[in-house]
């Protein structure tokens, strides 16, 4: 499902060049639950962003569902991000002026889903993440765990095949961290492909499929 070959990513900030990823080869199969670990600044988020088509590699090949993303135009990539991939950001990235409901509804608007179906989908996904009673709150009126759940609901609302999560439990207390982790495990058990950056030891209870990144390369 995901096939990366010789991926390299260089950030060019003025004078300094940072090689965030080098010679990365990665293979993820449908239904996998892959966890990514590694020290801070090692390139985990960079890898995730490329995988989620939010960023482009400097060089190397990335094929998603057998298609090279290099050959895709912007509209196709937008549709991929919209329907195929659900991305949960390290720092939520919710729209601050929009309510829980509106944040979760947004991907459906971009997908052109009709009003009635939108309402059904948003309500049911908010039920699933346990936020039915926070529909009309804005992000700044929610706790960290609740925000993370809004972000997850938004990632899931278009029923994507791949869920990418960048430290979804990193900012949470033990209790809500456990709940969020359980949510992902449930999604995995339903057949979704999950790739998660995490240092949460609980992940190891469910999967022994993990990679370690140091200094931009995957350790064997």
């Amino acid at each position, binding site marked *: 499902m995901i096939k990366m070959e010789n991926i390299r990513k260089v950030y060019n900030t003025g004078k300094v060049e940072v090689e965030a990823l080098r010679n990365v080869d990665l293979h993820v199969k449908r239904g996998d639950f892959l966890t990514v670990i590694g020290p801070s600044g090692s390139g985990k988020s960079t890898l995730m962003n490329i995988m989620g088509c939010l960023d482009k590699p400097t060089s190397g090949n990335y094929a998603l569902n057998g298609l090279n993303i290099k050959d895709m135009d912007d509209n196709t990539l937008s549709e991929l991000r919209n329907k195929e991939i659900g991305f949960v*950001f390290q720092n939520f990235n919710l729209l601050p*002026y929009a309510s829980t409901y509106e944040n979760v509804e947004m991907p459906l608007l971009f997908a052109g889903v009709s009003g009635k179906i939108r309402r059904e989908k948003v309500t049911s996904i908010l039920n699933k993440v346990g936020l039915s009673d926070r529909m009309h709150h804005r992000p700044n009126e929610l706790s960290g765990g609740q925000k993370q759940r809004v972000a997850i609901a938004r990632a899931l609302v278009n029923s994507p095949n791949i869920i990418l999560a960048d430290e979804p439990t990193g900012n949470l207390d033990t209790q809500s961290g456990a709940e969020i982790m359980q949510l992902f495990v449930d999604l995995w058990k339903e057949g979704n492909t999950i790739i998660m950056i995490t240092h949460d030891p609980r992940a190891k209870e469910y999967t022994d499929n993990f990679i370690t990144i140091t200094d931009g390369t995957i350790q064997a």
Partner: protein
Amino acid sequence: MIFKNIRMILRELSKQKLRTMLTLFGIFWGTTSVILLLTFGIAVKASTSKTMHGMGEAICVIWSGKTSISYGGFPKGRQLSFYNDDAQYLKDQVPLIGEISPQYSRYDIAVNVGDKKQNFTINAVWPEFQDMRNMVPREGSRFINNLDMENRRRVVFIGNEVEKTMFGDTNSVGKMMLIDGIPYKVIGVIIAKEQDGSYNGRDKYAIFMPTTTYLGIYGDRYVNNLVARAKNVNQTSQMKKAIVEAMAKKYRFAPEDTQALPIWDTTEYDQFLGTFFTGFTIFLGVVGVMTLIVGGIGIANIMYVIVEERTSEIGIKRAIGAKKRVILTQYLIETFVISSVGTIAGFLFARLLIFGINKAHLDDFVGVLILNPTIAILTIIIISSITFIAGWGPAKRASTLDPVVAING
């Protein structure tokens, strides 16, 4: 899709009330102040110009003076006087003259209407005087004409203040007034005009009658002064020269003796005014452009800050699947709505203020404010374009970035 877009935009605009209000207010106020400023400037210019021209444009007022050079056997210091036929003489001698009129004047003449009594200056002139000296009769009344002259009619054309004093608020046209005990019929009243320049009193306090009538009663031998205007106002100085030469020949004084024939040439004054107004117009233009720039920078700044802030918003939307086109349409409509609502509201408010100011009768200070459509349209176009470019440009740029780059600003 467009419809859905508009709903989404309206929703987002109303969600972000403070931001929207601030932007709208900036654009609104920018538009209002630019329009008001320019309208004020134009009104001041127009009212000053009107005041300055109240006495008439491009005319020469000619007096007889004292010679200052001995000439033709006469010593210097000789007092000259115009005779009754001098106006006609000049008209025949100087083809450059378009209109000419003698002017006889008597001051402090007793005028009676009923039991009202007051002294005024009376003048006797030809019908040509009307056009040269900007004597505009009120509707339903007229100035002295040729028939009045031929028939030596006892008719008078009076200043609006004369009417007010002698007749109160009633219409004096057709009524009689006694001047030096002799009855005259009022045939016309001058409309109220602004007059800054004058030589023997303001027209609004004066009474005018035909010279034939006047001479029949008072029998003057000398004319007070002459008023002339060139056929072609560009030839005023040639006309002056020809007049001086003709008079020098008749009265035997040196043609270069400027004191023998003092002439007030209002074209010189007009030229000064012309320069002054050109300066004023340039000043207004500069102030207008500066205001536009300052207003524009303010608005551009607001829009820019908003879009900078919005870059990450655009990144988030792109990350969850918004196509470029959707983002662009959304922000295009949004900036369009904001810039048109802001500028049109600003325009309407400026109109309202102008209406209010005119209603409050401040016209003595600023003149009547007239909203110049060109200025209004140009202001609206320029300000909304600035808003549009400032708002749309960065949004367009943000939509072409990779989502992650946009999110991180």
